[in-house]
């Protein structure tokens, strides 16, 4: 998904209510951020949230929303698998409305990624199809009909082509291409690192 698309969608969220910042991340990588904080602070928040997510997963907890209130503002964190959307807002009355909008965005975002990946797969399959030879039709001589096993039933065998005594192991015609993430997710690769304990 293009950064402009994310920016457009999250721009709507950012201008809603008392929202003053948003961070979209995957694991410990920042996908998009628009917050009045320095980048190192954003990275810190994302890393901490990844640690928190890891902790809850380890504890078999299905935490999908967190809300924190501070003297300087409020934070809503919506979690969907490895994706996290952090929204900073001023009024604590708006938690539910913001969380709802954030969840809707995350669903749309992941659908967008899925659609892009599907389209890429489809294009690749079409490209492979264009270069592969036409399937050969079986000639009547190659079909040998043996005597019936029982009255009313027939066994049909296909004669193998010359030079092929046995069939090769089945191979998929097209292999699933290695996913090339869009620009927006290009940085969202997990990196091994030490995790803090909560």
């Amino acid at each position, binding site marked *: 998904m293009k950064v402009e698309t994310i920016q457009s969608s999250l721009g709507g969220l950012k201008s809603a209510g008392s929202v003053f910042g948003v961070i979209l991340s995957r694991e410990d990588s920042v996908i998009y951020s628009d917050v009045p904080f320095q980048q190192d602070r954003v990275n810190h928040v994302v890393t901490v949230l990844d640690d928190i997510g890891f902790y809850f997963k380890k504890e078999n907890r*299905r*935490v999908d929303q*967190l809300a924190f209130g501070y003297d300087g503002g409020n*934070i809503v964190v919506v979690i969907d698998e490895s994706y996290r959307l952090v929204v900073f807002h001023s009024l604590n009355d708006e938690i*539910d409305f913001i969380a709802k909008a954030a969840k809707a965005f995350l669903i749309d975002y992941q659908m967008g990624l899925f659609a892009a990946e599907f389209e890429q797969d489809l294009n690749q399959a079409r490209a492979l199809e264009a270069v592969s030879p036409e399937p050969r039709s079986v000639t009547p001589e190659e079909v040998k009909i043996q005597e019936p096993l029982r009255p009313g039933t027939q066994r049909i065998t296909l004669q193998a082509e010359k030079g092929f005594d046995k069939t090769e192991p089945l191979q998929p015609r097209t292999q699933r291409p290695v996913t090339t993430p869009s620009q927006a997710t290009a940085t969202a690769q997990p990196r091994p690192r030490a995790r803090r304990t909560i």
Partner: protein
Amino acid sequence: MSQENIEAELQTALLNKIPRYFRASGGSAHGKTGVQDTEKFAELLMVLQECALLVGERLEMNAVSYAYMYDGDETSGFRFDQSSDPANPQVVGAIQNRRVSMREFTVGLNEYMEGVKG
């Protein structure tokens, strides 16, 4: 409160999916739904407080006023009782085995603090 009453209180809360309220200060927590349930809240309080502090520490948002979460079908959280002594701050919290809006959850905690509930 007898053990039977404590058990009945917990069962009623679970059955009706109403919040179980707790109060904590100075490293100890108190509730009306038994030791195990209070221990569960105490653990949750520690985890949520740690999470809130970790997230806020580099953003210069250190004074945590509340922290809530949805864990599966459960809503839980705490908030500081602003009417408590600043030298010995108290926390009120709740666990509810139902997903309620966080606004509704906050209202419940506020009412509990004011003595309407509990």
